[in-house]
């Protein structure tokens, strides 16, 4: 087995981006095919990783280690654990379908694909990086292209000024794509600053002057260090995971972003945040994780219910889906806060399930928007007559979103709720389950208004179903939702090995919340 497998997965999109730089602007089809090949290479690599990852052996496999700054203990060290396997697959699926969904981007398409691919390389890198410094570096590479992608290719949505802070509106043009891009970038950078501080605290207190995550994991940091590091990591990465009240970049950002960028951002990037909280915060600072768990879990259930309630009264379809991400990322954070195997498995599974589901949602919303030229739900109606496939896939995504058994969403939510029910805080499940009910209300109402009803006339008389490359996202992601809903062990077996290993190595963590 090639030992450069992970480098291949990480580098393929970046290499494709470099190739795009050499292509002339007129080579539109070549641009797309090169991008698709880069994405497919990564997906294929991720599938090979999943295929040959040894579940009996567990641990970190496909290790690659290249010194970067040896004097400071910085290495490019790549390895895949069970969580990485699931998230690599997710990222691969989303980028391939995302490229397919971007086939019709016509404004500065070359630059668009270059940025998209660079971003994805960063995402792949974060999921397999075993060196905190490189982890952080790639994290920034994954986050920053968003500014350009939203600011240049995004769309605007006017928000009327109101409330106690309306005097601010004048200055910011709230709702415009420039505003969304700026807010997203600034908020995430503030988060990054917190992570940077935490990183150097860990580095200097480790005694070994190393950024190696496995070496750091072996260090028993003092309680005071942990209590300093954990909240920084939680808020730093948590901003990207949409933790309340630092989630407000997300609805504006996702609503303004172009289709593929929304897919990637809500589908994959938010998971980087949750992954960071678990992989860096909880594993490296277990005592503090136990101490902070009531807060993390409490905020997570606020996320779930509050996000769902906010989504229920949005009039713009993209905002509905964006707020549903805030709600669903709460499920991930709740699972993380349980600090038990069921909850952690559920959290990672929810990262995957929500990624697929929201990717599908944004792809479909993009499809609908392209044809109807509106995102206002109340203006639509009867679209199922003209676009039955879109209607079916939207319904499927809705059902996964509300946690229907047989879809991936159920497995994830159920595991998380099971995990929460067996902690000291079983009441966490109450707002969690209520949030799932509110989700049922808003997604099905949206599906009903948009797709059901009499045959549309007038401006919507000539809609058409998905065609050509537009089929990519609905088919692949829709099938994945059902496959991983019926047969969760396809992924859970990987995830569980790693969750169990982390919990076993840290006996303090296991059942600390019983």
């Amino acid at each position, binding site marked *: 087995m090639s030992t450069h497998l992970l480098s291949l997965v990480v580098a393929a999109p970046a290499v494709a981006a470099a190739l795009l730089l050499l292509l002339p602007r007129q080579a539109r089809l070549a641009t797309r095919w090169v991008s698709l090949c880069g994405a497919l290479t990564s997906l294929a690599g991720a599938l090979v990783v999943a295929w040959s990852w040894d579940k009996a052996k567990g641990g970190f496999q496909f290790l690659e280690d290249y010194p970067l700054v040896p004097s400071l203990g910085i290495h490019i060290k790549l390895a895949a654990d069970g969580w990485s396997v699931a998230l690599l697959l997710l990222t691969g699926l989303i980028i391939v379908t995302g490229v397919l969904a971007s086939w019709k981007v016509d404004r500065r398409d070359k630059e668009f694909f270059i940025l998209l691919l660079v971003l994805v390389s960063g995402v792949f890198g974060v999921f397999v990086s075993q060196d905190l410094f490189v982890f952080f570096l790639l994290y920034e590479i994954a986050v920053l292209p968003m500014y350009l992608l939203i600011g240049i290719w995004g769309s605007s949505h006017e928000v009327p000024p109101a409330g106690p*802070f309306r005097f601010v509106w004048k200055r910011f043009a709230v709702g415009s794509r420039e505003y969304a891009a700026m807010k997203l970038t600034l908020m995430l950078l503030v988060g990054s600053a917190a992570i940077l501080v935490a990183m150097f605290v860990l580095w200097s207190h480790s005694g070994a002057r190393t950024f190696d995550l496995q070496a750091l994991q072996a260090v028993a940091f003092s309680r005071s260090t942990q209590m300093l590091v954990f909240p920084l990591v939680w808020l730093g990465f948590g901003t990207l995971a949409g933790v309340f009240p630092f989630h407000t970049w997300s609805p504006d950002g996702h609503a303004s972003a172009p289709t593929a960028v929304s897919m990637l951002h809500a589908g994959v990037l938010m998971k980087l945040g949750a992954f960071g909280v678990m992989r860096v915060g909880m594993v490296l600072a277990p005592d503090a994780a136990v101490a902070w768990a009531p807060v993390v879990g409490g905020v997570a259930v606020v996320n779930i219910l509050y996000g769902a309630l906010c989504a229920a009264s949005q009039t713009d379809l993209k905002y509905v889906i964006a707020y549903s991400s805030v709600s669903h990322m709460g499920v991930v954070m709740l699972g993380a806060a349980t600090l038990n195997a069921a909850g952690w498995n559920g959290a990672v599974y929810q990262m995957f399930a929500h990624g697929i589901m929201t990717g599908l949602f944004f792809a479909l919303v993009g499809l609908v928007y392209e044809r109807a030229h509106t995102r206002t739900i109340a203006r639509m109606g009867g679209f199922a007559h003209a676009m039955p496939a879109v209607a079916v896939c939207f319904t499927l995504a809705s059902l996964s979103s509300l946690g229907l058994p047989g879809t991936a969403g159920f*497995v994830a939510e159920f595991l998380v709720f099971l995990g929460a029910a067996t902690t000291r805080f079983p009441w966490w*499940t109450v707002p969690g389950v209520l949030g799932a009910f509110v989700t049922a209300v808003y997604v099905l109402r949206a599906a009903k208004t948009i797709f059901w009803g009499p045959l549309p006339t007038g401006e919507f008389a000539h809609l058409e179903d998905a065609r050509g490359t537009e089929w990519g996202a609905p088919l692949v992601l829709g099938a994945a939702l059902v496959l991983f809903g019926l047969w969760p062990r396809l992924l859970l077996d990987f995830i569980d090995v790693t969750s169990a290993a982390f919990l076993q190595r840290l006996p303090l963590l296991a059942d600390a919340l019983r």
Partner: protein
Amino acid sequence: MNSPVLLGEVALGAPALAALLLVVFPWARRRRAPAAGLTIASSLVAAAAAAKLVIDRTGGAPDVRVTIPWLPAQGHTLAEVGLQLDGVSVVMLLVVTVVALCVQVFSLEYMRDETARSYGRYFAYHALFLFSMNLLVLAPNLLQLFAGWELVGVTSYLLIGFYFARPSAARAAVKAFWMTKLADMGFLFALLVLFASTGSFDWTVAASPQVATAVTALLFIAVVGKSAQFPLHVWLPDAMEGPTPVSALLHAATMVAAGVYMLVRADPLFARAPATRDLMLWVGAGTAAFAALLALVQTDIKRVLAYSTCSQLGLMVAAIGAGSAFAGFFHLGTHAFFKALLFLAAGSVIHAVHSNELGAMGGLRRRMPLTSAVFVVGALSLSGVPGFAGFASKDLVLASVEGKAGWVPWVLLMASAFLTALYMGRVLVKAFLGPPSEAAAHAHEPGFSMTGPLVLLAVPAVFAGLLGGWLARSLGADYHLHLGLTPVVASAAAVLGLGAAVFVFGGAGRRVPWAAALEYFDRGAFVDRGWESLYRQVLLRVSGWARWVDRYLVDGVINALGWGTLEVGTTVRPLQTGRTRDYVFAVMVGALVLAWLGGWR
């Protein structure tokens, strides 16, 4: 691989395969013959497997339970899925598959006017439904039962909304899903509580009385939603927006009975929770009488039958609450046949007169003799006339509540038995007797694919009652015919009710004033409206607040922070004047200050 497991897998796998093929191959779904053929063939296979299982069972085959791990945690198995083949599940499987098969064959002709696309979609939904229902029926634990439970809920949503172009159908579909989903939170919490306290999803687990009470109470909430018990019954009458065969299969014979089936399955847990059983007794008896009253004032033949279903489910719930799961299950079985028969016969009438309204019918006995005959059979069975299936099981239900809770539930159920006969008599009088209306004058008997299932279902509607003893042996319950107060009063109630109907409704269309008041209470003012205002006044209002808070408060703080940063920047910017003398002056001042701090002091 032993044979019963294989049969169980076939029963589960055949409809799943049909559904999968219809989803994966659009060309099959968009043509009539392959779509209907695949679905019906799969149902036939499933029904054959179920029949074989039942026959083997009668021959003394033992209970079988196989499971595979489904959710792992730390290397252990958290949850399993699999098959449980015992007396209850194989009988239920047979009932479900046979009724489904009849309904699907009936639909061949009933749905013929649909476009090919809709026709295929209809049968694909049916295949999906049968898979989900079998998944529920064969579940070895509450988790898989829950999975099937939710999936049949979705197929119900899809089938109610089958005519999605009609806004009323769309609304009814969503309403049904929301109401049952609201109740299903109870099921989910029950699973969580059960797992947190026993580490298992099995209904046989030895739970403490407190845990059992909590779990069963939560489960019962889900049953109230699924089996349309008061006050969550309001979705069922609206669900009649779906095609009539769907109403027969899902909203009368099988899916709504899933709630009762779950009560039968989880009976070991309920046996540890007497408080929940008392609650069930009251809710069931109350719903039975209440819904029977409402059935009396409906003008839409399907809505009469819908309320009748609520009422009959109440009967089953009450019996199980009284501690006789067998009586409830027996009535579930007979009800499935005669209610499916009634709905399909009603469908045949609707097909002929193109209206659901009783007022548009009348005198159909001449134009549609076969349909009229089987409808009469169904009505007599439902009314509990001695000699019909409904009598045997209803008698058992009534006997089970004898003397319970100061005889009040018994009286309520007896009253509902009388009212059942009364409203069925009303339908008979209005639709089949009397002078034919304009539409009814041109009605004609449907073709063989519609009459065939009717005749087939009429057989068990008459004779299924004879199977009581066999069923009791298969389930290990004790069953003996008895002659006493209950059967006599029940027979009298049935006969009197039917007689009174001819007397009361024989003339011009008279309405019952107090029943109309009740209808106002149910739909106009309180129950239905109550749920709607809960949705509009509470959920949407709170949601509106959340939206405002997020946009203008939480987001406002973030914006204000950004604004503040810019303002500070603007304020201090004039310091950078770009003039050398200002900077030299600042350097001088700085130097003086440092000097003062350092030495001059």
